[in-house]
């Protein structure tokens, strides 16, 4: 079982990101679950979502304790939240960042999801849409296939800029 924890702020689409990822993994033939953890959620408050991917049915509902990967959609969250908690040693981190950041002991991937979204004018209610390009980045890391990412995005969003942003992220992310 592969476990991913997604950190974001309320309103950034972190919950939708989890759903998209689970959908893409499902389209790739896997069993996948996605659940948000709702605290006192309001716009701007830290939000955590969990995605589990496996070849067999997943019977665990409790929160992910030891993620294989942590995704951070808004690095400013790290001031309030310990994103490393429980992360497996040699675990992976995928960070929405415009400049490269590394964390010792973990494989860190940085991609400017915000920049990609803005470049594609993928902005809703003043916020850049980072969850659809995220799927492209996750495809590059190898969690899902790019085709599955495209299909999952199209299943939820009719605006083709979302798929384009995902393809941009796929291309931009250097492992």
């Amino acid at each position, binding site marked *: 079982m592969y476990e991913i924890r997604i950190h974001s702020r309320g309103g950034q689409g972190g919950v939708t990101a989890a759903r998209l990822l689970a959908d893409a993994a499902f389209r790739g033939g896997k069993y996948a679950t996605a659940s948000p953890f709702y*605290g*006192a959620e*309001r716009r701007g408050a830290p939000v955590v979502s969990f995605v589990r991917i496996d070849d067999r049915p997943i019977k665990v509902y409790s929160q992910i304790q030891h993620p294989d990967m942590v995704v951070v959609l808004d690095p400013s969250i790290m001031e309030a939240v310990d994103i490393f908690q429980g992360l497996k040693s040699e675990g992976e981190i995928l960070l929405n960042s415009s400049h490269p950041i590394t964390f010792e002991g973990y494989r860190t991937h940085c991609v400017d999801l915000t920049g990609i979204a803005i470049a594609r004018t993928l902005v809703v209610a003043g916020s850049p849409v980072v969850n659809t390009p995220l799927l492209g980045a996750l495809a590059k890391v190898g969690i899902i296939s790019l085709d599955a990412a495209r299909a999952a995005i199209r299943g939820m969003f009719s605006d083709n800029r979302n798929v384009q942003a995902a393809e941009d992220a796929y291309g931009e992310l250097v492992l």
Partner: protein
Amino acid sequence: MDTRQVKEEIMTEIPKEEYILKCTSACAGCSSTLSLRYVLKAAGRDMVLVVPACCTSVIQGTYPRTAMNIPVYNIAFAAAAACASGMSAAYRKKGVKTRVIVYAGDGGTVDIGLQALSGAFERGTDFLYICYDNEAYGNTGMQRSGSTPLGAITTTTPGGKVHPKKDIDRIIEAHNPPYIATACSAYPLDLFQKVTKALSLEGPKFIHLLAPCPPGWRFPAEKTVEVGKLAVKTGAWILWEREHGTLQVSGPSRAAMKKRVPLDEYLKMQGRFRNITEQQKQELQRDIDRALARIACEVKQPCS
């Protein structure tokens, strides 16, 4: 008197003490919290805020913390006015002057809370009931309420609401309360003055406060005051008060009665009206015209 002097005069009316502390859970641009700040300043320390299920239930923060420096009594959705009734009766019996103020959303007022509200007013309960109206069930994610206007998109009216907004003011007026007023978050001094006036009177008082909601009405957070002002300037929201039945129209609405901004200016700022039909717009316009005409007739003021 130059503008700065006038502004200073006005601002000195408003006490400095803050009862809403930093780090509420409010959304950016939340009109309700902006307004509550002034309500509490007008009410002062000796009060209890009764809050049914609504956005304020969450805004106050999560146990063990609270962002409000006055007693806040949370109560079930349908029960705010009934709870306030009991609280007020108990305080009066004890000879305690503590003010009982309900701060409720439109859902808990015009829908599920209507029975208790009517009962409390019919019995002459000594309390102030403030309904902050964001025209939907905000706390649960913007489903329609009876207070949602015609044509507005909510999560349970994806094609736009087909029924008109329930006129809770006329319902409350039918109870002949000593004081009823409308207010709007974009006019805080007007709100402050109305709360002060209400609290100086005995019996049941009702203030209906328009509270534009950025995520729910779909406009950028920084426009929250602008949207509120447009509501009043277009006549979509009319500011008035009735003290013992006598109607007085508030300044900004007197101005709107003389010269109105076209309704479309207000509607086009909000994503929730993106699918409103021409027919619905005309119906909204007719309702505005009728409401203003009625008011103009009553105060015998010419209306354009």
